């Protein structure tokens, strides 16, 4: 037998940045296509502009900063796709370009490019746009008329389901699940998002800890502390309607807004989420708590992006806190 001596790393994997990013793109496609179906051809335009301008800004900023070109790792495509999925379909096109510039140039490349961004670029760009153009970013539309209509004015403006829960015309849970509702392009079809999420987990691109902790924490908080929570519940638990009522608000809140998109595709970004399992659970719980607080006590309807960006900033500290000790390490101040 021949013994080989080699230095680490001994375990190698075929995965490259490019292949992982390709997996993420594939996983995002069902939800994107569902968004195109629900919002018409203008959604395709917004997506294309977002992806194209992200790639172009990535190329230009690498060029200006005299660094090697990284557009082939597809990370800019993922950022562009995620950004488009986080935008309402009626947004003016130049705002999409501004958002892409902010994501790539300011958040990603100014901090050193892929792997060095301190928050998720797509979320940061979304928040920038929400603060910069509050009106354009919160005008939701439901498509009426033909799917190939390019004008957003053909649409009827509508409230996001998040603010509608008490209204009589609030969509049913099934409609929320399949995506027939107002919202951002990529966040509407929960079914398609879940298909993509399962694909990512099967391919071992993401681990389920962050989404599990995030969604679970949020669900429990709404269940126990929501407006019609378990404590002031007055329905009859002996009937199936009573059970449905008991879980209605927590499921409604889970399925509306960008929670599923955020939990599976944006909170799990490698660069800006903790490395350890304990840290991932903490990160997800923090996101869940913050989302609940912003949605119920803040002055904004949606809190997913803000909660993820806040936890992104805490990530280095969570990592420090939960990092395991190497075997046999002695404490610095230990008595000998």
């Amino acid at each position, binding site marked *: 037998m021949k013994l080989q001596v080699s230095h680490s790393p001994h375990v190698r994997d075929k995965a490259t940045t490019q292949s992982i990013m390709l997996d993420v793109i594939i996983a995002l496609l069902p939800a994107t296509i569902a968004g195109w179906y629900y919002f018409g051809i203008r959604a395709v335009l917004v997506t294309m502009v977002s992806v194209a301008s992200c790639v172009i800004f990535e190329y230009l900023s690498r060029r200006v900063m005299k660094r090697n070109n990284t557009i082939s790792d597809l990370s800019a495509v993922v950022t562009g796709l995620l950004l488009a999925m986080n935008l309402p379909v009626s947004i003016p096109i*130049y*705002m999409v370009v501004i958002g892409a510039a902010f994501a790539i140039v300011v958040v990603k490349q100014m901090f050193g490019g892929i792997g060095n961004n301190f928050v998720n670029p797509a979320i940061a760009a979304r928040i920038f746009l929400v603060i*910069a153009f509050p*009106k354009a970013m919160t005008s939701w539309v439901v498509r009426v008329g033909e799917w190939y209509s390019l004008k957003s004015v053909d649409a009827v403006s509508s409230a996001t389901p998040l603010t509608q829960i008490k209204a009589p015309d609030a969509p049913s849970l099934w409609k929320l699940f399949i995506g027939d509702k107002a919202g951002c392009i990529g966040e509407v079809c929960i079914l398609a998002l879940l298909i993509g999420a399962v694909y990512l987990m099967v391919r071992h691109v993401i681990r389920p800890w962050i989404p599990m902790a995030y969604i679970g924490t949020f669900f429990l908080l709404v269940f126990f502390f929501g407006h019609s929570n378990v404590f002031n519940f007055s329905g009859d638990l002996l009937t199936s309607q009573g059970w449905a009522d008991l879980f209605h608000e927590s499921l409604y809140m889970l399925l509306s807004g960008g929670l599923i998109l955020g939990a599976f595709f944006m909170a799990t970004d490698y660069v800006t989420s903790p490395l350890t399992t304990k840290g991932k659970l903490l990160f997800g719980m923090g996101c869940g708590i913050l989302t609940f607080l912003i949605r119920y006590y803040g002055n904004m309807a949606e809190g997913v992006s803000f909660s993820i960006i806040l936890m992104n900033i805490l990530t280095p500290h969570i990592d420090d806190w939960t990092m395991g000790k190497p075997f046999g390490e002695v404490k610095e101040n230990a008595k000998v």
Partner: protein
Amino acid sequence: MSENKMKDVTYRSPDERLAEKKSKYTPKYIFLNGVLFENPALRLVLGTCPLLAVTISAKSSLFMGLAVLFVLTASEAIISLLRNVIPNKVRIPAFITIIATFVTIVQMTISAYLPALNESLGIYIPLIVVNCILLARAETFASKQKVLPSILDGFSMGVGFTLALLLMGTIREILGCGTFFDMQLPLFGTVFEPMMFFMLPPGGFFVFGICICLVQIIMKKQEKHTSSKEPSPCGTSSSSDCLSCAGCSLCKGKEE
């Protein structure tokens, strides 16, 4: 400003610097020091509070800058005149009193002749009293130098601060409001919607960071010309010397 000119007045080799120690504070050096090398806002990062608060429009930035310019020049002149009279132990209260006198003059003048401006600048005019730029210059320059250099230093620091404010105010007003000195600009408001972001505190910090970054790029390009640069003992990689560095006590006996 050509690069050669700037190269002329700063960044000498250590030996040259030592030899020129006595004649270092040439008028040209003091002026460029205040405007660029030690720009109080963008290089020393002093006076950040009014900087972020008043730069929502170019007009209020300009007037704030001019107010600071006046107070800085006048108080440095007086402090320099009294530098041998003021006892060392009570110098800070004495400086503050002198600065407060001029701030009161400025505030009364503004509220008498420009009431609208007074309202928009609000608390930030009285707050000039405790602006760290003024104290820093009084402590590090005016209390040690002769009157004329002190006046020039106050003036150039004021110009540097005004330019920084004006730069930030212009960027924030154009992007956030679509106006420049209250004039409506074409395209903005019709084709492009002004970005609220730049009117809000996060936008202020953002523009501040970008401006610091730009000045840093200019200084980096300058530094390339000087291969051997002596690191200063206090650990700051400031391109100029200890004139108003915060860790001043660290350098005592090493620089002088």
